[in-house]
């Protein structure tokens, strides 16, 4: 079984090629690959979208993506993971996030891929700004879970 060191995790400013990512996770021990290709829609809440801009807290976002990839290996019977998110300006139809998961059997690949995109959207510090003909909005997002106050870091002494 492939180790997580063969995973691909990245934040990029260039176009993402989902077909190339599929090739990166494909191996002869696999029988299934599930790919999530998230791309820019031409509308949002009945408004016509012109383009999007994504920004990230880059080192933390990459670390969180890597945590998700590692978690997939511990929770699902999968082989390889590729998780790539694009930043900067994206035009309609361009891929913003692509996740590819390979496994011997389809169920694990489906489950892991679904878990990966759901967790990314909830916990990775990336923000989307939607531009319309008459202005822009920061997209509604989700608040990541945070440690409770009782687990606060104690002062160094």
């Amino acid at each position, binding site marked *: 079984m492939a180790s997580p060191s063969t995973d691909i995790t990245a934040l990029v400013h260039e176009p993402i090629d989902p077909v190339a990512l599929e090739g990166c996770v494909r191996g002869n021990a696999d029988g299934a690959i599930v790919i999530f290709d*998230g791309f820019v829609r031409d509308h949002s809440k009945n408004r016509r979208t012109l383009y999007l801009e*994504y*920004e*990230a*807290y880059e*080192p*933390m*976002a990459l*670390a969180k993506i890597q945590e998700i990839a590692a978690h997939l290996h511990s929770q699902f019977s999968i082989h390889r993971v590729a998780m790539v*998110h694009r930043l900067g300006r994206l035009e309609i139809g361009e891929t*913003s*996030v692509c996740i590819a998961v390979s496994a011997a059997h389809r169920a694990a690949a489906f489950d892991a891929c679904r878990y990966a*995109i759901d967790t*990314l*959207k*909830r*916990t*990775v*510090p*990336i*923000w*989307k*700004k939607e531009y319309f003909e008459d202005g822009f909005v*920061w*997209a*509604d*997002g*989700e*608040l*990541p*879970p*945070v*440690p*409770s*106050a009782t*687990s*606060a*870091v*104690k*002062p*160094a002494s």
Partner: protein
Amino acid sequence: MPSVSQSVRVKVLFFGRLKEIAGRTQESIDLPAEADIESLFAHYASHYPELQQYRSSLVASCNQEFASWNTLLHTGDEVAFLPPVSGG
């Protein structure tokens, strides 16, 4: 022991609409010893009152991990105020 005026120096990062309100992406700031993330946010909210309305819809991080608001700060810490995330 005589009280010694100590301060801590932390790096603060702003993202999304917070960056636009604060008009900056990051800065370093000196805080009183025993300052926590909540008091750091209060400092900025006093300078930029528009920030206050977002307090309940933010999370904070310290050294690139999500952190509770009562996390005490130390020199060299990197704190960020994070709006609801919307990647994907």
